[in-house]
């Protein structure tokens, strides 16, 4: 039982101290899981990360589930998942209770008038760097462009877009395979 709680505590720590989620969490998780606890070696960690990123859902949750499962099976993955979820659940629930009461406050409203455009800038600014690391080139830039237009202007649900992307990837690969044969 002690080992289950250790999983919980490690991921609770990671969940509590990583702001902004996702990619910001990866070095922290690596530090805890590979360097300190040696639950995985570096190679295993990189393989695991590749899978965690290609599956749906938050990357940090997928990572926590994988490490927990690898170490102590399904039950272990539930402990690590609870660890990573709880900190943000507690903080956001508290904020939600406070915020829904003070939303009409004129000071709060003025603060958020300043913050809202900043939020958009923080989403847009990393796009170029992210595009490069996702392998976007002049040849395939039509893919993100088409996706953005479909979602933004045509209001198509991202669910259909995701399914279409997966289908296109598989079809393309099947065609290459057939011509090679």
């Amino acid at each position, binding site marked *: 039982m002690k080992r289950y709680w250790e999983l919980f505590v490690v991921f609770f720590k990671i*969940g509590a101290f990583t*702001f*902004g*989620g*996702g990619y910001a969490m990866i070095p922290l998780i690596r530090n805890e899981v590979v360097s300190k606890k040696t639950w995985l070696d570096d190679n295993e960690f990189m*393989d695991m990360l590749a*899978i965690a990123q290609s*599956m*749906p859902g*938050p*990357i940090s*949750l997928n990572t926590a*589930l994988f490490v927990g*499962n*690898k170490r102590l099976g399904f039950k272990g*993955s*539930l402990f690590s*998942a609870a660890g990573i*979820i709880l900190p*943000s*659940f507690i*903080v*956001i*629930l508290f904020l*939600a*209770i406070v*915020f*829904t009461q003070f939303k009409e406050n004129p*000071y709060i409203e003025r*603060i*958020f*008038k*300043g*913050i*809202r*455009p*900043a*939020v*958009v800038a*923080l*989403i847009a*600014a990393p*796009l170029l760097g*992210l595009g490069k690391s*996702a*392998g*976007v080139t002049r040849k*395939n*830039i039509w893919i993100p462009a088409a996706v953005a237009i479909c*979602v*933004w202007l045509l209001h198509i*649900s*991202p*669910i259909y877009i*995701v399914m279409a*992307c997966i289908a*296109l*990837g*598989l079809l*393309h690969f099947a065609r290459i395979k057939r011509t090679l044969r």
Partner: protein
Amino acid sequence: MQLIELYLSLFISFFKIGLFGFGGGYAMLPLIQHEIVDAHHWISVADFTDIVAISQTTPGPIAFNSATYIGYASVTNLGFSNFQGIIGSAIGTLAVSLPSIIIMTIVCAFFARLSNNEWMRASLSVLKPGVIGLIAAAALMLINNYNFIDYKSWIIFAAVFIASLKKIDPILLIVFSGIAGLVLY
């Protein structure tokens, strides 16, 4: 009765978000916005932007944060009690995590075969650049009359954009733009 229905549709919506939210973080935003603002009108676009702002300054992934927040806000907005709101936020958070729990359990069982599978990689070949389009859409969808009310909004946008490219801490930038809002408006 109305409450049970709300709980149920919260569960379904956030399960969908967990199941189809590829790319993590910002790439999940258009899907979250589509479900909770456009399809269910649980909150307004301005409120949605505020939740993203809160997510950027608090620990944890945006998908959890929005599930917890909206689970609470959508229930209490309809006049239900604080406690019923907390149940709503637990339902939302559980629902958004459930697909990951199921999928990663399966993945762990077949990990050795999956990690180098060519079909697995093929299925992601278009989705990977596609995710960049989803993040772009997230930004474009938030450029609207609620978030950009005048020229001052655009000045804040430009300043934060440049500062962010220079790798200045996003939490600091949110704090500064909040102060700017207090001074300018």
